[in-house]
């Protein structure tokens, strides 16, 4: 038997705990109030074009991305704009947002809401990219990089492969898994649209081997498309990292500090492919996404189709409520997700899951001194030395940290996950990255 493909350096294998993998996607009822933060994508925030008192329909443009790396925002609900003001985001800081009081569910007339699957791709390349830009599509894997920017390949570069990320290497999360099972055909059309936009003739869907049903399903669907291949990958975290996935799928290494296009690859998430399908074929902007609500203590681990801006508390309510002994609520997966300060924060384009942890799981164990076991170095998928980088960050030795490639860290958390002394390695690495980043900017 041929061994499964995976990336070469490092990696860990946390308990998968995919409780919700058999829960079909449910459509969550509309919220009463939607809070749409203006900075939902990587890059510059969008600029609001509505004001207090405006009536909006579902899918109506409410904020435009003016900067090069920015994205449009659309009303996820129909109703009345109550205010454009600061809202407390998931970290407790205040960020500007559009508040919409939900009245009913009136959609913008230009959106095709028919259930039929539209298979004919009639748009040209520039039209596709323009439509993706108009519809505010961003990478739904979590990084929320605006997709249209990714599709505009810089001069002199040429993409050879489109790699579709169906890895979902984060434990607990199942939103991509369910999407692949339920919307496989739409995803394939989305992939073909992306291939056309990028002018590539090869696409690879990478899926980890723990989702055998999704692999089978997509392989069956892709049987008629010789250009689209489905690869089963060995289960190893962080395979969903862009650089790791490229290494696993086509065995190319993205040079340090460069983008995947350097090795002729463009990586997109399956959720993004689905959103691209809806945008291009149905003219539907990115106003909803699949969010997993899960955790050991959650009564009904579920996958919901949720409108952007819905308070997270409503999702938890739909999964039969916040358990009594909840100690931590995480936006995202357990390895890279962000702990929430309040469950009233809204769902954004980047929320792939809500993980609820019990009180006893949410505390860190007490730290011991580093025993120099070098396990962090072994598991680092970027070949870095986390123990050293954490030390340099702690002592503020920024030049040294830069020389040791701290900026290559992608914050996957494998080092901290493994550390037998429970040291907060990644916490310090982040601090180091932030400070070195500032240092590099001041140099320019």
């Amino acid at each position, binding site marked *: 038997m041929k061994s499964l493909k995976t990336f070469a350096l490092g990696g860990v294998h946390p308990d998968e705990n995919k409780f919700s993998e058999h829960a079909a996607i449910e459509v969550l009822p509309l919220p009463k109030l939607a809070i749409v933060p203006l900075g939902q994508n990587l890059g510059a925030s969008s600029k609001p074009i509505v004001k207090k008192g405006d009536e909006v329909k579902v899918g109506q443009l409410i904020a435009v991305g003016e900067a090069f790396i920015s994205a449009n925002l659309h009303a996820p609900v129909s109703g009345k704009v109550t205010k454009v003001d600061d809202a407390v985001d998931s970290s*407790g800081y205040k960020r500007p947002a559009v508040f919409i009081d939900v009245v009913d569910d009136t959609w913008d007339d230009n959106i095709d809401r028919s259930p039929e699957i539209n298979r004919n791709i009639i748009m040209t390349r520039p039209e596709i990219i323009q439509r993706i830009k108009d519809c505010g599509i961003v990478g739904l894997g979590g990084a929320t990089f605006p997709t249209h920017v990714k599709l505009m390949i810089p001069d002199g570069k040429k993409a050879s492969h489109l790699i579709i990320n169906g890895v979902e290497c984060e434990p607990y999360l199942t939103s991509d898994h369910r999407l692949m099972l339920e919307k496989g055909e739409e995803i394939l059309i989305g992939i073909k649209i992306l291939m056309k936009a990028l002018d590539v003739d090869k696409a690879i869907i990478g899926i980890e081997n723990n989702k055998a049903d999704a692999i089978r399903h997509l392989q069956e669907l892709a049987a008629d498309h010789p250009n689209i291949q489905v690869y089963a990958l060995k289960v190893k975290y962080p395979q969903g990292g862009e650089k790791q996935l490229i290494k696993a799928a086509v065995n190319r290494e993205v040079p340090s500090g460069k983008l995947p296009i350097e090795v002729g690859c463009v990586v997109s998430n399956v959720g993004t492919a689905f959103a691209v399908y809806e945008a291009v074929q149905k003219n539907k902007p990115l106003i909803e996404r699949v969010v997993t609500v899960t955790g050991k203590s959650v009564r009904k681990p579920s996958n919901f189709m949720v409108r952007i801006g819905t308070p997270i508390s409503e999702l938890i309510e739909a999964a039969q409520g916040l358990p009594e002994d909840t100690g931590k609520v995480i936006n995202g997966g357990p390895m890279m997700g962000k702990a929430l*300060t309040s469950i009233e924060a809204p769902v954004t384009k980047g929320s792939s899951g809500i993980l609820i942890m019990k009180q006893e799981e949410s505390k860190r164990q007490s730290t011991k001194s580093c025993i120099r076991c070098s396990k962090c170095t072994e598991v680092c998928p970027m070949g870095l030395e986390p123990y050293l980088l954490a030390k340099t960050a702690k002592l503020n030795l920024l030049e040294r940290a830069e020389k040791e490639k701290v900026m290559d860290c992608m914050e996957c958390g494998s080092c901290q996950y493994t550390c037998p002394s429970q040291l907060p390695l990644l916490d310090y690495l982040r*601090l180091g990255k932030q400070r070195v980043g500032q240092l590099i900017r001041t140099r320019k």
Partner: protein
Amino acid sequence: MNEVLIYALVTLAMLGTVLAVILYFVAQKFKVIEDPRIDAVDEALPKANCGGCGYPGCRNFAEVSVKSADEHKNLDGLNCPVGGNDVMKQVAAILGLEVAEKDPMIAVVRCNGSKANSPAKLQYDGPSTCAFAQNLFAGEGGCPHGCLGLGDCVVSCDFDALHMDPETGLPVVNDKCVACGACVKACPRGIIEMRLKGRKDKRIYVCCINEEKGGPAKKNCVVACIGCSKCFKVCPHDAIVMNNNLAYIDDEKCKLCRKCVEECPTNSIHELNFPPRKPKAEPAEAASVKEKSVGAGVETATEAKNNQSEPLA
């Protein structure tokens, strides 16, 4: 036996002489000629190498001082906060110049979001560094401007002038402070400010930097400045400016009349080291605590809290 001794001695002596000659010529060749005044200035400096002057160390400050004296015939913009006026006078004397006296400064913590005033709604579990927690979330009490209480300022202080009060969770400045400014740089939220030490250590300042509107600010902390402008209106010396829902007292203009302290509805204006007021409605207990703080010359948030006449809501 003797022969061996003599050989050894002669060899050693010759080796010594040859090496000494080589050393002499090398030393001549690579001699660094340095202005002797740099050494003299360096000698006068406190040698704390704290960086409070804005230069990487005392030696560098001495070099810059000498250069400034040669080029501009003054020491403008050069000040050793640690040594204060005495040291700067000595430095000026060495360089044949004169310097104007500067009023001494001290670090002031402008947050009173203690555990009682801004109760924790969340629990932080991670490394004890404000810089990291600042990126992670707004703070246990919820105030996005308030003290995170993890002590980056204490770590940065080379003079043992700061410590965390375990009761309030806030840093406390003591009179060892030399105003080097390390804590001001270390605080990711800019809570610590260098202010004039004031006559007899008397200081009045707004103990809050929250720029939110009144409602949200008060939600997280009962002693937040709500930007009501009452102090601004009452101040007879134009020392108070309002900016972004926040009052700020200009320590150059403030005449320490204490009118604003009485006016502030949230008790966010603090007075330090003043004699007790004539008892009005103030309970005797609070006044006695205040007296203690006069003697110590130390500000703590607890004492500051006791300075306030109104009971906390």
